[in-house]
Each structure stands twice: as structure tokens, then as C-alpha cells.
């Protein structure tokens, strides 16, 4: 019986038990076809070996100290930790208890860039009159600046001092159907009629209670935040000191569909409302926020002028960690955001339709999220 090429190749390398080698030899002496085959294998093997022999160790760099290498390794671990903390901040913004907030676009994410960290119980003046989400704008931000621990501390103090809760949220309620949710929310709850395979239905439905709070701006804090970010040269907008900003976050319905790849979550809520004193210039304030987030002056001015601050939700996109695209969904303009480095399987979609803000997030492509969203209407 002929020998297959794998066995012949092993025979060439004398990588077979003695008994098998002997039998192979017997066969080869009697079989011209296998001898020829063996010869081909040998030639290829020699060609390959002589080519690969050129990959010899270069003279330079052959010596290395593992201890010195370990010292460099430790530096590298330190670096990668700060990289990862930026990543985990991003994860925090898009997952867990903030997911609903993010997806439903509660006020804290909504608000100006300089207050979006540490996440979300914070808010500040940014919008004239009553802000309602109508549109989305993605703003790339340089997240490394926000990792600065001084900045985090200053922000923490600034906001614990200045936020007054006007209406405490009640407990979140589990509901059994969209109808039940509709009664609590005051608008028609919508669920997708189509989902990709693998997601468990019916979903777990929860209504998170809303809340309201007021932030009084103390310009000294704003300055210290600015300075902690290393942007002392950016001018503070006029009329900011003492400005009172009211934020009203409505109830949010979340629908949670489990799958092996991880859950898909759908959130929906009325737009949060934010009131800012009329004498605060929103464009100026927006520009200030954009500059604190690391945007060059001319670019910030241009972007601030282009944004309709009273109706546009600013979605901070950490540079290098996330990627985004404007899309059209169910006749509205929306935004999809995904992790830049990921395997591409995790996206978030946000859009507004008829006064309701929708957020979808899960281990799905942007196209799949859009298809799900469109099946809700």
C-alpha cells in the first residue's frame, strides 16, 4: 500500500518508530511511485531549509539580559494599565448601570464634555432654555487628559458641592409587557418585532425611575477643572458664575435580551430636559467644553458654531477607543458608535423619533442594530 505524504515526510526526518520506518523502507524499495514522491518531498524540504537558513540570528542583539528586559516589561505594564483605565472608563460609560443612562441619553451624558467624567451624576450648564434631544453629534475627545487624577478629584468635589437633587428617583420596577410599561412611561413603549437568532425572548423589562436636580455653577470650580486639564489659557464663558441649571431626567424603559454572545439592550425614554439661564451663551459654552476635551481652538470654534446646542446631544467619542458614523434609521438621523479596537462585534445605536430617544446596544453589527430599530415602527 502506498505511503501518504505525511508519513513519507516523517520518514525523511526519521520521525517515526523503527518498525514503521522499516516497513516504509521495504515499501519504497518496491514502489517507484512512492520513491518519486519521496524525492519531491525531499527537494522541497531542502529548498525550504536552505531558504530558512538565511534567517540566522543576527550578530547584533543576540545577547540580552532577561533582568533588564523584565525592568522594561514592568514599565510597559504600567503604560498599558493607564491605557486600560481609559478603556475601562469607556466601558463604564457604555455598560452596567450607566448603560440605560447612556442609551437613554440621560442628562449627564448629554451635558457638556467637561462634566461627563466621573460618570454621570454630574451635570452643568450648557443649554439655553429647555434642551431636548433632537439630534446627535459625535465629538472626538482626547481621553488621556481626563485620566489625570487631579482632574478627577477636582471634579468630584466640584459636583458634590453644587448638585441639589430636586426629585429622588424611586426604585426601578419590573414590568411584564410593553402595555404595562406604556402606562408607567406616559408614551407608547416599543419593542422590536424582529431580532437576530440567538436572543432570548421575551426580554426582561424594567422601568427606571427618573430624577431631577439642579446644578449651581461656581466659576472657581470650573476654573480649577480647566486648570487641572492643563487648559488654563482657555477663557471662561461669560455669565457662568452662579448660573442655575435644571436637569430633568424622565423614566427610562430598558429591555434586556440575553444571548450567548452577551446581552442586547434596548432603552427608550422621553428626552431629558435641561434649562439654562438665557444669558449664558451656549455656543461659547460649547466651545469651552470642546477645548477642554482637547480640541484645538480653531476647530472648537468652528464646531461650536455648527452645532445647534439646544437640540443636539453631544456624544463624547474617546479617540482611539471608539469609532462612529451617522446613519439614517426609521426616517431619523442617528449615530452608531463602536469600539475601534474590538473585533467589530459590539455597537451602540442612538436616535430620536417623535420626541422619544432610543438607544440600542449589544454584540451586533451596526446594520443589525439598525434593522432591529426599524422593526420597532
Amino acid at each position, binding site marked *: 500500500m502506498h505511503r501518504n505524504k505525511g508519513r513519507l515526510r516523517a520518514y525523511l526526518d526519521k520521525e517515526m518508530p523503527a518498525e514503521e520506518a522499516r516497513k516504509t523502507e521495504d515499501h519504497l524499495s518496491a514502489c517507484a511511485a512512492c520513491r518519486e514522491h519521496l524525492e519531491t518531498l525531499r527537494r522541497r524540504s531542502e529548498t525550504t531549509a536552505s531558504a530558512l537558513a538565511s534567517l540566522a540570528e543576527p550578530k547584533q542583539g543576540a545577547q540580552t539580559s*532577561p533582568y533588564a528586559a523584565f525592568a522594561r516589561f514592568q514599565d510597559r505594564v504600567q503604560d498599558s494599565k493607564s491605557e486600560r483605565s481609559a478603556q475601562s472608563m469607556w466601558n463604564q460609560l457604555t455598560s452596567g448601570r450607566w448603560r440605560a443612562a447612556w442609551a437613554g441619553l440621560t442628562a449627564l451624558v448629554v451635558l457638556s464634555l467637561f462634566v461627563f467624567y466621573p460618570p454621570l451624576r454630574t451635570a452643568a450648564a450648557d443649554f439655553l432654555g429647555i434642551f431636548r434631544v433632537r439630534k446627535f453629534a459625535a465629538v472626538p475627545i482626547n481621553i488621556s487628559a481626563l485620566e489625570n487624577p487631579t482632574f478627577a478629584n477636582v471634579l468630584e468635589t466640584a459636583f458634590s458641592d453644587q448638585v441639589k437633587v430636586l426629585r429622588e428617583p424611586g426604585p426601578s420596577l419590573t414590568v411584564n409587557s410593553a402595555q404595562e410599561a406604556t402606562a408607567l412611561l406616559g408614551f407608547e413603549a416599543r419593542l422590536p418585532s424582529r431580532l437576530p437568532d440567538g436572543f432570548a425572548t421575551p426580554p426582561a423589562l424594567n422601568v427606571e425611575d427618573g430624577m431631577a436636580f439642579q446644578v449651581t455653577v461656581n466659576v472657581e470650580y470650573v476654573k480649577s477643572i480647566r486648570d487641572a486639564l492643563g487648559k488654563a489659557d482657555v477663557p471662561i464663558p461669560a455669565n457662568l458664575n452662579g448660573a442655575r441649571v435644571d436637569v430633568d431626567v424622565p423614566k427610562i424603559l430598558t429591555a434586556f435580551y440575553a444571548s450567548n454572545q452577551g446581552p442586547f439592550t434596548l432603552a427608550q425614554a422621553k428626552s431629558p430636559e435641561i434649562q439654562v439661564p438665557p444669558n449664558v451663551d451656549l455656543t461659547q459654552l460649547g466651545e469651552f467644553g470642546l477645548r477642554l476635551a482637547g480640541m484645538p481652538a480653531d476647530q472648537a470654534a468652528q464646531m461650536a458654531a455648527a452645532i445647534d446646542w439646544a437640540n443636539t446631544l453631544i456624544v463624547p467619542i474617546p479617540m482611539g477607543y471608539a469609532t462612529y458614523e451617522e446613519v439614517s434609521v426609521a426616517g431619523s438621523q442617528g449615530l452608531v458608535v463602536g469600539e475601534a479596537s474590538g473585533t467589530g462585534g459590539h455597537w451602540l445605536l442612538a436616535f430620536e423619533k417623535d420626541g422619544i430617544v432610543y438607544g440600542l446596544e449589544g454584540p451586533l453589527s451596526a446594520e443589525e442594530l439598525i434593522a432591529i430599530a426599524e422593526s420597532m415602527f
Partner: protein
Amino acid sequence: MSEKPEEVRSVALTDALLLERWREGRNEAFEEIFVRHYATVYRTLLRLLGTAGDAEDAAQEVFLRLYRRPLPPGREHNLPAWLIRVATHLGYNVIREQARRQRRQDTWEKERSAGVPNPESEALRAETQAGVRQILAQLPRKQAQILFLRHQGYSYEELARIMGVKLSSVGTLLARAERAFAARYAEHTPRASEARGM
């Protein structure tokens, strides 16, 4: 701090025990693993990649992977095999990336001037090496890995362990990889192949 003299580390803990301690959060166990295996990983990558800088970068990345995600408990791990697998995996990514850049540069240089052959032997050797790496980069990952590792002198049994394949399929994998390599090599250096009677 000075380097530890060899004799102080007289009790050689097994890799398994070190991994166990590292999982328990004992950093010195990781250092021990690193120091024990670094040279092997580094030199493998040095041969594959050709420059100390690239080799060190990739070697550090190998250990970073282990550091971030320690091998799970409850299974018998062959740490050297794991390290070499990850090293050649990452090394392959590097040569692929280099080959991509090289192709761009080649196009650019062709546009600039007709290539003048460089007769110096050092340059010729560097060119051969680059050519071999480019061919490896064109092969599927497993084929490139097995060719490179076999040439490093690993036995079939070691190759099976590193690549996570059955011992009985090493010969087949190798034969297939050599066939693919030799075909591309012949295209790459037609005259050299003719001289060898291919």
C-alpha cells in the same frame, strides 16, 4: 538592586507551581517565569524578525499576554510550548505587516527608478532574508509557523505540542507547508531555482 546570582535560586520551582503562584497574585512568581523563559522567546523572535528592536517588542508582548490573562488553573500547561506558540503567532503578524509595508514601498521605488541590483553580499543576504519573510507572510499562519519552528530544530513531538495538533499530522502539515513555500520561492527567485534544477 543587583541581578540574582544563580545559586540563590537553587530550588527550581516547576512552571506549573510558578503559574499557580502567579494566579494567586504573587508578582515574584511572574518575574521568575519571565526571567526563566525570556531568552528563548526573544531569540526565537530575533531569528524570525531579524532585528533586536522588533524581537524585543514582540517578546514583551508575549509576556504581556500571559500577564494579563494567566493560563487558567486545572489544566496541565506546557508553558514553553505556549510561549513559543504565542511568540510565533505574534511574530507572524509582524512579518505580515512588514510585508504589506514593503509592497507599498516597492511600488513606490519602482515608480521612482528602475531597480539597480546591489552586488554587495551583505545587501544580498538582507534581500534574501526579506524575501523569505515575505514568503512566510504570504502563507497561512499555521504553515508559516511550522516551517519556521521546524527549521529551529523542534522535533515532531515538540511541534505537535506547540501547534496544538496531533503528532500524526505534523508530517502532513509540514509537507503541505513546504510545498506552498517552495512554489512561492521558485516564483520569487526563478534563476536560483533553475540552477538547482527545479
